[in-house]
Structure formats: structure tokens, C-alpha cells
């Protein structure tokens, strides 16, 4: 115990909240990055190792963001990536929920599909991207297929788990009061499984974004992944970082949006959700 008397804190409380400290941390990190880059430019290593060919500074990234935005290149690439993402992801949601539901309700089908699903889930399916390019050629469709493969299994497995873990006593109650099978389905199973299904969809977002990028590396005429590859091969790191920032922002925004949707669809789950939101990946 150093001093018992309470002093007024030097920094007011709102400046010490964890959100503001987080913002400081990000700003400080960016500043360190910028300063380190500046410092490097003055040493002779900078020229000797051609560091500006693979490292960029925050200011340069902002500058190349402006250039790419004005020339319309960024929007074109983002549009292509977004299309692939949306097609593949919607297909994954549809198929994942349907197959997951069928597997949860029919034991026989579950037994037959289970070895395939668990094996494909453990496989890094981005490895199939080059093979898919060979089969289906270039363009939006094969890339969407890679996104589909990347995203479908978390959704499928979470739908399966969600439907399987619907509380039996709820179903019994509805049935005891004369509920029809369709009522059991729509009033009990769907609402009870929704949070788990959306958790699966949230997990799938990250995988889908990676799949978009990897698919575009192999064969594409446009897209953010194509942009990364194109500029990194020309040793221009600025645009590469721009694409990365766009994808990071997209990933985080869709993650937060799905968290909101989950809160609307199943508010009773919001508490558990908040505990799990920080990274605890459900399977």
C-alpha cells in the first residue's frame, strides 16, 4: 500500500476505457510501422535489399488506395470478388442447411454421408482450387465453386449439431399439447437450431473469404486475389496492402453483421453469443 488518499486520476475515465486504449494501440502500431519504414529508408539496407519492393508504409498504402479508387480499378476488382463470394456463399448456405438437416433427421443417410463429410471437412479444400480450374476453366463459376467448397462444411456441421441438440423436452411438450409435425419443425426445431446454424455461417465467412482469394490466384481476370498476385509479382506492395485492407474490413464487417442478425433472430442466445464471439470457434 503506497498511498491511502485517493488522488484524482490524471487521465479522465472515458480516456481509459478499453475501447479507447484499443484505438491508441492501433494508432501507435501504425505510427511505429510508419516510423520504422522511414528509419529504414535512411539506412543503406533499404537500397541494398530493395525493401520498397516488398514493404510498404501506411501513408503509401493510403496513397495507392486513393489512386486505385480513382482509376476505378479497386471497385472493379472488389465487384468481381464480391460476386464470387455471394454466389458461392449463398449456395453453401442452401446446401449446407439442407444436407445438415437431412443428416440430422435420417439416421441411415447420416451413417452413409458421415465418412465423406468428416473427411472433406478435415481436408484443406483450397487445395482443390487448381484442380477445379482444370475442370471448369476460368471465370466466376469455378471460383464460386471453390468458395462453396470452403464454406459449406462449417454450415452443414453446425446445422447438424443444431438440429440434433434441440431439447427433447421442448418437442415433447409441443407434441403433448397436440402440435403437428410441421408445428414441431417450425416452432421448436428451427428456432432452437438457429443460433448454432448462424454460428456455422459466421465461421464460414472467414473460410469463404480465403477461398475467394485463393481461387482468384489461379485463374481470374479480375478480383482482389488477382490484384494481390498481379502487384506482388510486379514488386509493388502498396496495392497488395490495399487489397488486404479491403478484405480485412469486409471480413470484420460481415462477421459483425452476422452477430447482429444472430441477436435479432434469437435474442435469448445473445448472452451466450457474446461470450463466444471472441474467437471460440464452435466446430
Amino acid at each position: 500500500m503506497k498511498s491511502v488518499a485517493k488522488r484524482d486520476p490524471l487521465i479522465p475515465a472515458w480516456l481509459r476505457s478499453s475501447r479507447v486504449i484499443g484505438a491508441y494501440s492501433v494508432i501507435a502500431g501504425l505510427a511505429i510501422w510508419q516510423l520504422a519504414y522511414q528509419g529504414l529508408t535512411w539506412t543503406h539496407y533499404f537500397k541494398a535489399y530493395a525493401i520498397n519492393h516488398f514493404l510498404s508504409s501506411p501513408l503509401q498504402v493510403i496513397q495507392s488506395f486513393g489512386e486505385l479508387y480513382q482509376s476505378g480499378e479497386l471497385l472493379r476488382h472488389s465487384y468481381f470478388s464480391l460476386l464470387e463470394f455471394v454466389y458461392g456463399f449463398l449456395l453453401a448456405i442452401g446446401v449446407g442447411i439442407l444436407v445438415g438437416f437431412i443428416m440430422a433427421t435420417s439416421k441411415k443417410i447420416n451413417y452413409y454421408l458421415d465418412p465423406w463429410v468428416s473427411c472433406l471437412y478435415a481436408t484443406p479444400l483450397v487445395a482443390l482450387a487448381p484442380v477445379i480450374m482444370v475442370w471448369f476453366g476460368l471465370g466466376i463459376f469455378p471460383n464460386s465453386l471453390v468458395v462453396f467448397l470452403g464454406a459449406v462444411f462449417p454450415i452443414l456441421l453446425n446445422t447438424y449439431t443444431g438440429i440434433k441438440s434441440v431439447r427433447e423436452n421442448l418437442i415433447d411438450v409441443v407434441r403433448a399439447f397436440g402440435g403437428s409435425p410441421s408445428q414441431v419443425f417450425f416452432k421448436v426445431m428451427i428456432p432452437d437450431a438457429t443460433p448454432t446454424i448462424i454460428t456455422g455461417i459466421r465461421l464460414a465467412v472467414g473460410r469463404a473469404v480465403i477461398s475467394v482469394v485463393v481461387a482468384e490466384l489461379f485463374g481470374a481476370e479480375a478480383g482482389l486475389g488477382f490484384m494481390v498476385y498481379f502487384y506482388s509479382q510486379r514488386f509493388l506492395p502498396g496495392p497488395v496492402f490495399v487489397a488486404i485492407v479491403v478484405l480485412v474490413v469486409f471480413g470484420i464487417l460481415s462477421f459483425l453483421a452476422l452477430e447482429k442478425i444472430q441477436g435479432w433472430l434469437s435474442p435469448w442466445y445473445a448472452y451466450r453469443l457474446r461470450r463466444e464471439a471472441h474467437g471460440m470457434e464452435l466446430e
Partner: protein
Amino acid sequence: MSAIGTIYRSHEKKFDAVISVILGLIIWQMIDSLFIRNPLVLVGPSRVAQSFMNLFSRGLLARHVYATFVEFILGYLVGVVTGFGLGVAMALSRRAKEILNPWVTIWYNAPIILLAPLFITAFGLGLVSKVVIVFIAAVFPVLFNTYTGMTTVDGRLVEAVRAFGGTPRQIFFKVTLPGALPLIMTGLRLSVGRALVGAIVSEFFGARAGIGYLITAASEAFRTAEALVGVVLLAIGGYATFEVLKYIERRIAPWYEHRV
């Protein structure tokens, strides 16, 4: 007949799995040999097996698997240790948590694979660039799960130990760490998948050996069978590590309820 029926019914799940796999392979083979007879488009399991044996006997397979394995294991181990350390630091110190949290969120959600081309230009085609990518891919699931596990340990247990005069050290080693163990193991398992993807994708960009290299090199030359050998190897490797870690998880923390 009834004896077979009883055996079948008592192990229905396993039998069905085997039947399903065999049926799938037969259908795949039939499509290959009856409908699409173009080896550029589709190759059946027999052709994949053939080219597996071919690669194996030439010693190429061992070389590629070894290269990927070294990248994977180095990056994974460093990533796991770092992730665990940072996770513990974030769970124990509020300040560390506040400073690290935004960065961890950003990096965890970022498609880190995108950095692969940059790392390759920076660190070259060799081992270093891949290990760095695998490391970044593997570190965050462990970090997050260590943190979540340590912060969600039942407060009553901590209080009980403290009430009986437990030191902070004892609380850490006897309560918090064992309590967090199941989640940490889950993090280890999730990291395996991400690290594997990291290793493969970094090999796509530029490598001299490795399963990812095998897949790209083969598919660019339209040797689809060889590419599929790589994919099948990954499937087996991924599945095996997944199951082994699941088994360890169950042994270490049998009280922990598994979700799947």
C-alpha cells in the same frame, strides 16, 4: 443370415461407413471409365492409385510430404507456443488485453493467406517464408482459445482455492490452467487446419517442393491424377491429425462435453 444381420446391426455405423466409401469409389470409377473417358477432365480412383504408386516408387512423394511436414511442424510449434504465451498474458493482465485485443481481432479475421505472396518476395522461395505463414495462421486460434478458456473458468473454484489459502501460483496451476485445458486443446486442433492451409497455399505461390507445389505443378501440366494424389494425401493427413488430437482431447479432459 441372421447372424450376419446381428453383427451388421450391432456395428451399423461402421459397416455403413465402409459401404458408403466403397460405393462412392465405385461410382467415381464407373463415371470415369463409362461416361467421361477423358483423363484431362476426370480421373478415376484407379488412375489416382496408379499415379500414387508411380510417385511413391520414384521417391518424389516422400520428398514433397517431407517438405510440407517440416514447414508445417516448425510454424505450428512456434505458433502454438507464442499463442499460448500471449493468451495467458492477455488473460492475466488487463492492460495487455486492452493493448493486444484490437490487433488480435484484426489479424484473426484477416485472410492472412493473402500475405503469402509478399512473404515469398521478402523471404524467398525457401523454408523461412512458409514457416512464417504457417506461424501466423496457427497462432490465433490457440491464442483466442487460451484466453477464452482461462477467463471463463468457474469463479467459484478460484474463490474456493483462495479461501483455503491458495497462492496465485497455485490458483494458476491447479485451477485456471486445468480448467482452460479443454479449450486450449480445441484451439490446437483448429490451428492444425489453418496451419495446413497456410503451408499449402504458401507453396502455391512459389516453392521447390511440397504437396501444394505438387498440386499446382501437376494441374498446370494437366496431370490431374497427380494433383488428386496430393489432395487425397492432404485429406488423409488432415483427418488423421484431427482424430488424433480429438482423442488426446478426450483423454486429457474427459469431463469436457464435446459438441460434435
